[in-house]
């Protein structure tokens, strides 16, 4: 974490562009609970950054401190280069899309969108044009004169987005804005949000507990745990090279094997896994293999990184097939794209194999990521 701290300080020192957000040693406590613990984070202008983690990891508190609804107990927050500690929310050039949208029920859609502009010195004629422009942007112009209560969740979501973006904030904060939508709408909105962000070039800070959301939209993902950032990297790195068992378990699904390291191999309860890392013999480790990295073949053909098991379950997941294989005391999940799915039936003996490069080995950090659960 020290090099990120240095990096953050360096960014703070150098002239920051409008839309930069820099957090240095930010700490927030509630009673004896530490919600955010010495957080260092630099968000570049125009970046789409996700704060990802389970509830209680401090991601929403971090967002609320950037918005100004909470003040940090220690540390500094800089937006566009200047410190905003002690600056009330109405004087920060950031806008928020709230989880439950928080649209004003006594105003029409257009009046909701105009709310922020009316607090500024924007002339009346321009307010109207910009409201129309913002409503066009989210394709909600025909709903301009309705009340929010007459709109569906997805439509309210769009209005909340327009109401925030119409002010042309240097940073847009989104607090789990898609969590109240059903799945199909959520996926549509993910695409729309990403396109909008790319077009506007506004810095987006997106809080979510949904790893799929974070992976699909973010330039970078900050995986949070207990008030700290566990890993900060682009989606590909976080998915492909998680820095810890916690991250590996939180992003995507994993087959985890607890065991003892011996060089490049892990002894895990009757199973020998060979990875590429060189490990101190005798240390407690967790090995992780992605379900999609496992190949499944009919028949029995054991070997290194190759185990024999019995197929106990098959489920269709649309574009892919999921197999659950029992081998000794382990239960392993395999994901295979549908076109290349082997023809096997429950009860069949099968062989699972994977490449050594697909075995990720982490020190046992005591975290208990959800065991590789069957069915999405």
């Amino acid at each position: 974490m020290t090099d990120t701290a240095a990096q953050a300080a360096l960014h703070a020192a150098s002239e920051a562009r409008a839309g930069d957000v820099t957090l240095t040693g930010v700490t927030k406590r509630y009673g004896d609970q530490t919600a955010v613990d010495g957080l260092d984070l630099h968000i570049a202008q125009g970046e789409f950054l996700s704060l990802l983690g389970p509830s209680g990891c401090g991601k929403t508190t971090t967002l609320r401190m950037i918005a100004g609804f909470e003040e940090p107990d220690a540390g500094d927050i800089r937006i566009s280069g200047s410190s905003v500690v002690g600056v009330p929310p109405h004087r920060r050039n950031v806008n928020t899309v709230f989880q439950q949208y928080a649209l004003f029920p006594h105003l029409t859609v257009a009046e909701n969108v105009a709310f922020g502009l009316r607090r500024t010195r924007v002339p009346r004629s321009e307010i109207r044009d910009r409201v129309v422009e913002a409503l066009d942007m989210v394709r909600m112009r025909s709903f301009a004169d309705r009340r929010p209560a007459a709109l569906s969740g997805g439509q309210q979501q769009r209005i909340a987005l327009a109401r925030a973006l119409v002010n042309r904030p240097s940073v847009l904060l989104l607090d789990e804005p898609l969590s109240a939508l059903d799945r199909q709408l959520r996926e549509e909105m993910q695409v729309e949000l990403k396109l909008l962000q790319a077009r506007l070039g506004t810095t987006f800070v997106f809080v979510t507990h949904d790893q799929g959301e974070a992976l699909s939209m973010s330039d970078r993902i900050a995986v949070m745990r207990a008030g700290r950032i566990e890993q900060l990297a682009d989606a590909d790195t976080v998915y492909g090279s998680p820095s810890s068992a916690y991250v590996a378990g939180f992003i995507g699904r994993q087959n985890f094997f607890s065991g003892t390291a011996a060089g490049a191999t892990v002894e895990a309860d009757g199973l020998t896994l060979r990875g590429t890392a060189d490990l101190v013999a005798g240390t407690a480790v967790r090995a992780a293999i992605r379900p999609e990295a496992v190949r499944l073949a009919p028949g029995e053909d054991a070997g290194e990184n190759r185990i024999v098991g019995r197929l106990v379950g098959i489920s269709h997941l649309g574009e892919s097939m999921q197999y659950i294989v029992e081998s000794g005391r382990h239960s392993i999940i395999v994901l295979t794209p549908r076109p290349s799915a082997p023809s096997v039936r429950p009860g069949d003996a099968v062989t699972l194999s994977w490449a050594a490069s697909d075995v990720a080995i982490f020190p046992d950090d005591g975290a208990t990521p959800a065991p590789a659960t069957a069915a999405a």
Partner: protein
Amino acid sequence: MTTTAPPQQRATLPPAPRRRLRLPGFLMALPAWSWLLVFFVAPVGLVIYYSFGYKPGLFATHATDVLSFDRYLEALSPTFASVFLNTLWVGVIGTILCLLIAMPAAYWIATKVPANRRGLMLGLVLVPFWTNFLVRTIGWRVMLAPEGFLSEWMVGLGLGPIEILNTRLAVLIGVVYNYLPLMILPLYVAFDRVEGPLREASKDLGADRVRTFLTVTLPLARPGIIAGVLFVYIPLMGDYITATVLGGAQGTMAGQLVASQFTTAQNWALGSAMAVVLILTTVLSAVAAAAMLWLVTWPLRLANRMRIGEAS
């Protein structure tokens, strides 16, 4: 939809359950309707009817064989009219004072007090209500008496004795004290309904505390404010216990006049006419206040209105 059983089965089937009697829905409100009819519509109708009559002799209270507006002319004579104006003054000022005191208190309880202590705060607001109305009001006589302890302290501080007992100021203090909980409760409910995220959204969009209160909290709390104002204003206009105990000769209110016509003077006709004038004064003044408020805020509403329209 009805399904008929095949003929061969019909004999073996138990008799079809009797169609359940469905009463029309408005019957649920029947107790309330009958209560209103017996204790509100009928007496008020009688009062209106009596108000057109007269007092036929020393030992009769009313007669309606000759109907006229004469009792209304009596009720609006200068002596009585000044009492009505006095009542209006106490009613309007009292309601405004209640609103001004209750607004910050209710806002504080609804938004600043931690949720687990709000019940306690509301309980404290209600505690005086558990004490007899008359006892509480007489308590104020002790407080305001020129020879009372409060007055003596004031003398000690060189501020002179308090000499407001038996004036309309004493009545005003009494009614504000007595009716304040009736204002705080609906205002609390109203402010409580304005969710925290809405106020946060307002601040997020550049409105400071005052603007947030004026443009978000207050408009959303409006139904509660209207309810609170009516809860206080209407009983306050008809109040006569507070005025009897604290008002003396200078602080007489219309309610006392009505009561004395019915009891001491035994003139039900004049008492009825006064009661009708009091009811009309209360209703018309409330309507006038609402209309005035609507007119005054009209330019503001016009300025905040925004219609896009699909065609434009």
